[in-house]
C-alpha cells in the first residue's frame, strides 16, 4: 500500500461482543407496508395466470415475443399492443439447487429456482421453481411443463403456477 498508509484506520468489533451487547447499540425496526398496483402489462399477465394461461406480448417492429409482457418494447422503444397466448411448456434456461431460504435459514429439502424459457417466445421467460424432480437429473435444456394450482385456488399471482415439472418432449 502507499507509503502514506501503512496502518489503515478503522476499529473492527467482534461479533460476539456485539451480540452480547457489550458494545452500545441502538435498535430500530421499521414498520412499513406497501400495496403495489400491478400495472397494465403485469396485471394482464396475472389475470391470465388466474385463468390458467401464460400471456406474452409481441412487438410489431422487431417481432420479438416476450414474457413477462410489457406495454412497450425496450429495444424499439415503441408501444406494444399484440397480446399472445403462450403454451405452459418450455425449457430450463438455467437453474440452481438452493439450500437456503429467503432469510438464509438452512433447508433440508432444497428449492430449485430456475429461469424457464417459455415455448414460442424469443428466448424469453421468467423465474420460477422446479418440482417433482431429482436435482441431479436436471440440466439446462430440460423440458418442463407448468403444474397449476386448482382453479378455485388461483388468485392472480405468480404462485398460481405451483411449479414446473420435467415433461416429455412433444413436438
Amino acid at each position: 500500500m502507499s507509503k502514506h498508509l501503512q496502518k489503515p484506520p478503522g476499529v473492527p468489533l467482534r461479533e460476539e461482543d456485539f451480540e452480547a451487547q457489550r458494545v452500545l447499540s441502538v435498535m430500530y425496526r421499521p414498520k412499513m407496508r406497501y400495496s403495489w398496483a400491478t400495472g397494465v402489462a403485469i396485471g394482464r399477465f396475472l389475470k391470465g395466470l388466474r385463468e390458467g394461461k401464460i400471456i406474452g406480448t409481441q412487438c410489431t417492429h422487431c417481432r420479438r415475443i416476450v414474457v413477462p409482457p410489457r406495454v412497450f418494447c425496450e429495444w424499439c422503444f415503441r408501444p406494444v399492443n399484440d397480446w399472445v397466448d403462450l403454451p405452459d411448456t418450455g425449457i430450463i434456461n438455467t437453474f440452481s439447487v438452493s439450500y437456503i431460504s429467503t432469510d438464509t435459514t438452512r433447508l433440508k429439502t432444497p428449492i430449485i429456482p430456475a429461469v424457464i424459457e417459455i415455448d414460442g417466445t424469443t428466448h424469453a421467460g421468467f423465474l420460477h421453481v422446479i418440482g417433482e424432480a431429482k436435482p441431479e437429473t436436471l440440466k439446462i435444456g430440460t423440458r418442463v411443463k407448468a403444474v397449476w394450482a386448482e382453479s378455485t385456488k388461483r388468485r392472480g399471482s405468480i404462485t398460481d403456477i405451483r411449479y414446473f415439472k420435467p415433461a416429455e418432449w412433444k413436438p
Partner: protein
Amino acid sequence: MLEGNPHYQRRSRHSKQQVRNLQIKKRVAVVGAGMTKFMRRAQETGKELAFEAVRQALDSCNMRIEDIQSVALGSAPDAFDGVHMKGEYLLDGAGAWGKPYSRSFVGGGTGVFSLIHGWWHVASGLFDTCLVVAEEKMSSCLPHPQTAFLTIFDNMIERPLGPNLIWIFALEMQRYMQTYKIPKEQIAQVAVKNKRNALDHPSAQIAQKVTLQDVLNSEVMAYPVQRLDISPVSDGACAIVLASEDVARKITDSPVWIDGVGWNLDTTYWTNRDLYFPRYVANAARMAYAMAGVRNPRKEIDFAEPYDPFDYKELHHMEGLLLCRKGEAPKLTAEGVTERDGKLPVCPSGGLLGVGNPIAAAGLMKICELFWQLRGEAGKRQIPGDPRTAVAQAWGDLMQIGTVVVMRG
C-alpha cells in the same frame, strides 16, 4: 441467440457514437488515495469511516479540504443503514460541507461509477479538483444485509416465490459453467488466488490461505455457489482525490491518468437475457477503451481489477472486459496467467473475495489499487515489470450494469 439479432446489434453500437461525441475539456488525474480497514463490523459510523478515508486521501497528496472544489459520493442502498437520504447523512464525513456535492448509486457498480461521476466534474472543466468518496456500512442491517438486497427482485412476479439473493448468482454461474463446460475446480481457483493475494493487503478482512479442496468442500449455499465462492459482508470506506492536468502536475510528480471511462446497462427483464456473457460490461469496456485509445486490450492492458463478489464473476468479467476469448478465462486462471507474477495479473489487491466487499467502497478500492500499482507504491503487492496501463471494473444492479475505468501511470 439474441446477439445474432441484427436489431440488437444496431442498438448496441450506440456506445461508440457516444464516445465520438464526447467533448472532454481536461485530462483528469488521480493524485491521492486513502482507505480504511475493511471489516465485518466497524465501531465507527458511516460518517466516521468516510472521514477517516478522506483524511488519508488528502494527507497522501498533502492537500487540505479547502483545496477541494467538489465532492462526488457513492454509497449503496439506504436500506443497509436504515437511514434515508444517506448521501446527505454522509455529507459531513465526506468533506462536502458547503461544497457542490452529489451522490450516485448504481448498485454494486457504484464504486467505479463514483469515480466516473467525479471524473466528469473535472473533465468537463467545471472544477479543477474533486474528491470521490465511497462508503458502506452493511453490518447495521439484521439479521443479514441480504434481506435488504432482496427487494431488487421484481415485486409482482418474483418476490412471491421467496427468492434469495444468492439465487441470481447461482443461476448466472450455472448458465456460464454449462455454456462452456467449465469445471468447478477452475472457478474455485479464483477464490484461492484472491484470498492469498489479500494476505499482503493491510486493509484486508478475510485474507487467508485456503486450498482448492477447502473451497470445493465448503457448504453448498445454492448450487453451484458454495460458502467460499462468496465475498463477505463488510464495513469500510475509500476516497480518491482527482485533479485536472495542470493542477495535478503541481500536486505530484507522478499523477495517474484516467484515460477512459465507460458504463452501460442491460435490461431489468433479466430472465429475457442470456446470462452466459455480460454484454453490458463489454459495451462499457468498448466505450472506455475507445476513449483511452486502447485498440487491443489483450496486449495493451498490463493488469486488471475486475469485480469479483463471487469467484466466477472475476472470470465472467475478464471476458466482458475483452481481456480473453469467451470461455477462456477459467483456463487462463488454472494456468496461473492471472497470478500477481503472471502475464496478466488479475485482482492483485486480493479483490472483494480477499479484501472484503463493502459494496460501493469495494469498487473504489479497485481504483485505489490501480493508483498504487501504477505509481509503484503497492509494497508487497507490487506487480513486477512496471505496469503502465490498467483497467478496473464494477458490476451491479440486477446483473445489468458494467462500469469501467482505464488508467495509465
